[in-house]
């Protein structure tokens, strides 16, 4: 039973990740490849504040979101000028840059040794130690953020993002402040994935830079593409599929040396099949082009 709750916690964390990435890709048409870096900034900022300064759970989480939101300027400002493939290259560069900082700024992040002993969530003197209690707390956070995403999708803000995604030139010519929209959507999505990073750090108790590499960004992107973009349920389906897929592969009892490669093969195969058979994703409404 504890194993199922463990999977549920992971699903909740990655549901937040996928929903936030969907805001950029599905609503705004901005193919962000540095999402794992912002996941890492949230995780590191919160973990450092919890372990070194004794901050409370939610203030640490909020600070992580704020740090990720502010640092999103690294991608949102280039997005004003660079579009399409050029923007993808910029976001990969930002991913590499942030990863290098996490890996090499040993004085702050402890480099490849990571940060250990991250406390589990504590809320009004209640210690969330067991997996089932954490799944309840994280489920609440994911629900609130899911409602936020749904409200944004149906708001004039969501409509403006969709217009920008469909035709940026036309959006500009009817008065939509495209640059400002990009700035806001990156800040919101990065802040949200920063929260997910904090939740991840508090759950696993130990973080190091390898959890926030380009591979992780590709995994996040796969969740959104497989699940589908442009609506709220697509990323949830994608997160569920990509969390459960490696677990399903466990039942094949493959040796450890082979298992990781098989998992990557399965991801690749899944993406190719999706592109051919259902380009809009399992539950999506928008086909990213």
């Amino acid at each position, binding site marked *: 039973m504890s194993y199922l709750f463990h999977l549920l916690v992971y699903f909740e964390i990655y549901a937040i990740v996928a929903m936030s990435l969907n805001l950029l890709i599905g609503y705004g048409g901005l193919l962000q490849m540095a999402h794992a870096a912002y996941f890492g900034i949230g995780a590191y900022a919160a973990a450092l504040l919890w372990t070194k300064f004794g901050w409370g759970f939610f203030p640490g989480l909020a600070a992580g979101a704020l740090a990720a939101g502010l640092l999103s300027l690294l991608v949102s400002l280039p997005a004003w000028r660079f579009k399409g493939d050029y923007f993808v290259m910029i976001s990969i560069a930002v991913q590499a840059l942030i990863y290098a900082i996490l890996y090499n700024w040993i004085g702050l992040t402890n480099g490849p040794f990571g940060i250990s002993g991250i406390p589990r969530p504590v809320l009004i003197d209640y210690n969330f130690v067991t997996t089932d209690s954490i799944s309840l707390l994280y489920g609440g956070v994911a629900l609130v953020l899911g409602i936020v995403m749904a409200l944004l999708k149906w*708001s004039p803000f969501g409509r403006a993002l969709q*217009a920008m995604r469909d035709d940026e030139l036309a*959006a*500009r010519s009817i*008065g*939509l*402040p495209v640059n400002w929209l990009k700035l806001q959507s990156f800040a919101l999505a990065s802040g949200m994935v920063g929260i997910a990073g904090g939740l991840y750090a508090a759950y696993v108790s130990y973080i190091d830079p390898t959890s926030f590499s380009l591979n992780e960004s590709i995994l996040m992107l796969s969740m959104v593409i497989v699940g589908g973009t442009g609506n709220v349920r697509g990323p949830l389906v994608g997160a569920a599929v990509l969390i459960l897929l490696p677990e399903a592969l466990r039942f094949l009892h493959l040796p450890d040396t082979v298992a990781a490669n098989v998992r990557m093969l399965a991801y690749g195969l899944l993406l190719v099949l999706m592109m051919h058979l259902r380009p809009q994703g399992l539950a999506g409404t928008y086909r990213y082009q």
Partner: protein
Amino acid sequence: MTMTHTYTKFSGAATASRSQTSPRIESQPSRVRVRAVDLAVAFGGQQVLRGVDIDLTGGQIALLRGPNGCGKTTLLNILSGFLEPDAGTASLEFNGTTIDILTQTPDRLARLGIARLWQDIRLFPTMTVLENVLAASPHAIGINPAIALFALGRVKRQERAFREQALAWLDMLGMADRADSSGDMLSVGQTKRVAIARILQTGAQVLLLDEPLAGLDRDSAEKLVEDLNRLADATHKAMLIVEHNHDAITPVCDIRLTLEDGLLHREELEGKEWVC
């Protein structure tokens, strides 16, 4: 068969808003004026515009004509902020304020009152017809995500008014019954009408229309010309229209601008008799 129509310019808001389905049209406090002086643009050594002057006041309709590739769209690109000329000045005067067009971004210019219809239409294909028009609503407070989340009531009230206005424009252009259709499921003529509704929704006082009649059937074209004429008079909008269907548009034009070899010739037109 030869038909003769006589256009009577509507005299104001009261006349224009008689019909219940007509869009809400309000008189403006002062007339807008667009002026450009000595505009020059060259592409790769080829001089496209040389010493072009424009002077257009609210309520006036100007036809901009000329052979393909003569620089008509280039001129619209400059006036809508999408292209910086090599030389010259351009300004927008409204309510006692003068704005330098050449220092503004296209989106800011649209918010200030210069909206543009694209020759290749550019509807948002994944949005419905109504959403396409709603997207152009001016000063939508819900475009700020914080307000969208925390002032739902205010946003909803404003959206209701925008929706009413958008449906009225669509009704005027004969597209109200397709409000829920997807933007990519329309004929060229229908797409054009939705695009026109979209720029009318911006509330802009200066409309730059690049081939608004292309793709429209004869009846729709006639009706659109009539509606544009009515709007120019009732709301004092200034319109600069690039159009190859001269016969359809000339009867409602106050000015005819002919662009040839980079030079712009201006003629003031008299009389509104339309023979076709």
